[in-house]
């Protein structure tokens, strides 16, 4: 290879990287964990998915594909607060919706049931490698965001759970995606405690760890949430 070719390629490559970085910032293609030693990989994955998948719908399945029995991963929380909710039939379960919203609201599961509901039979894949198919019923998160008046400029939605300190977040596009549900039903019945009852997030375009169980607070924000987990923040793989 000629020296001139080498220098030209190097300069063009560096300029291309700078331009790519600016474009990525401008179009929100950099995930919250886009820096650090694995930053290049997570950023490439997230940016590629955001450009390729856009509004694509996760695959839905016929009823005959539903996994029997539905695989339960782990046991419900043992915290006293949760046990009391189970005993009370979740009548007092509340979800606080706050942050960049015009009307901060607190919703009960009964409130959510009055929203237009959506049922979908989708695949839930764990990062460990196993998976199952089930039908989930719930309120599309986009409906909730519209009701509380999520402000323009909001970039992330953060979900808190009753499991001590367990939380996670998705970007606003995934939050407004029609298949992203606040699920209260599963396989025709109520969402059982072992599956996150009374309320779990369902994000069928991402791995299972993004479908948080036992959701009790939802915060709309424009700040990149701190990485809690050592797993990549974007879980569409």
């Amino acid at each position, binding site marked *: *290879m000629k020296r001139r070719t080498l220098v030209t390629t190097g300069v063009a490559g560096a300029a291309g990287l700078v331009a790519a970085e600016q474009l990525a910032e401008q179009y929100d293609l950099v995930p919250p964990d886009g820096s650090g030693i*694995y930053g*290049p*990989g*997570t950023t*490439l*994955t997230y940016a590629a*998915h955001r450009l*390729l*998948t*856009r509004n*694509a*719908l*996760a*695959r839905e*399945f016929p009823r005959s*594909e539903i*996994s*029997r*029995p*539905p*695989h*339960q991963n782990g046991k419900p929380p043992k915290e006293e607060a949760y046990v009391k909710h189970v005993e009370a039939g979740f009548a007092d379960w509340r979800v606080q919706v706050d942050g960049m919203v015009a009307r901060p609201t607190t919703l009960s599961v009964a409130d959510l049931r009055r929203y237009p509901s959506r049922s979908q039979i989708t*695949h839930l*894949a*764990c*990062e*460990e*490698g*196993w*998976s*199952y*198919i089930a039908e989930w019923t719930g309120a599309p998160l986009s409906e909730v965001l519209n009701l509380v008046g999520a402000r323009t400029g909001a970039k992330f939605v953060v979900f808190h759970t009753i499991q001590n300190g367990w939380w996670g977040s998705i970007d606003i596009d995934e939050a407004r995606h029609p298949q992203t549900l606040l699920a209260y039903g599963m396989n025709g019945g109520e969402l059982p405690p072992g599956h996150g009852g009374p309320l779990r997030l369902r994000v*069928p*375009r*991402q*791995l299972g760890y993004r479908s948080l169980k036992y959701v009790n607070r939802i915060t709309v924000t424009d700040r990149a949430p701190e990485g809690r*987990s*050592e*797993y*990549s923040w*974007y879980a*569409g*793989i």
Partner: protein
Amino acid sequence: MAEPRHRVLVRVTHWLTALSFLALLVTGVEILISHPRFYWGEAGNASGPYLFKLPIPASRGLETGYSFVLPDQNGWSRNLHFQAAWLVAFTALVYGISGLRRGHFRRNLLPARSDLSWRAMSASWKAHLRFEPSSGEGYNVLQRLAYAGVVFGLFPLMIWTGLAMAPGFTAAFPLTVTAFGGQQSARTIHFFATLALVLFVVVHVAMVWVTGFRAGLRGMTIGQSKESL
């Protein structure tokens, strides 16, 4: 100056691929041991039937028959796995474009039609089994088939089955996973293709050893020509 044994682009992409493959293999094993069971079709889990399982302990709470659980290193393993996948994908892109433009595939990797006859193939097999040195210029037919199989078969299959396990990707391109019969089928094929690639690496390194390790290594690093060896 004599023509180098391998062009500089082939040498650089060879070692980038080797590095990526090592990272993908180590982290892939780490990811696998969190659930060393395999399924066929769309879904599969510990509550249902499985295709087969590996007789090893797991790094998570899967019932394996062992009394202990292996250390769980899935965090960095997953991150490094996908970062190395990007590196090998870009490397493959550069290698693929260059190989097409320079005629590398046609000249060095694809076997000649006359070499694919039963007679020529069995002659090549016999020569290999007798450890006879390869005669003539360039790669012999079995080498060509092995290299072409890896470059055009196994590597694309690894990337494809990997993508077929990504729920975001398959939302946009559902055919990439339904073509295999489901996400769990893709995972199982990903595993067997890994075994095939490991087998290739073992035979590849053994062959380099048998035919002169130092000379082979010099050819693939500093690019010494065959004549000057």
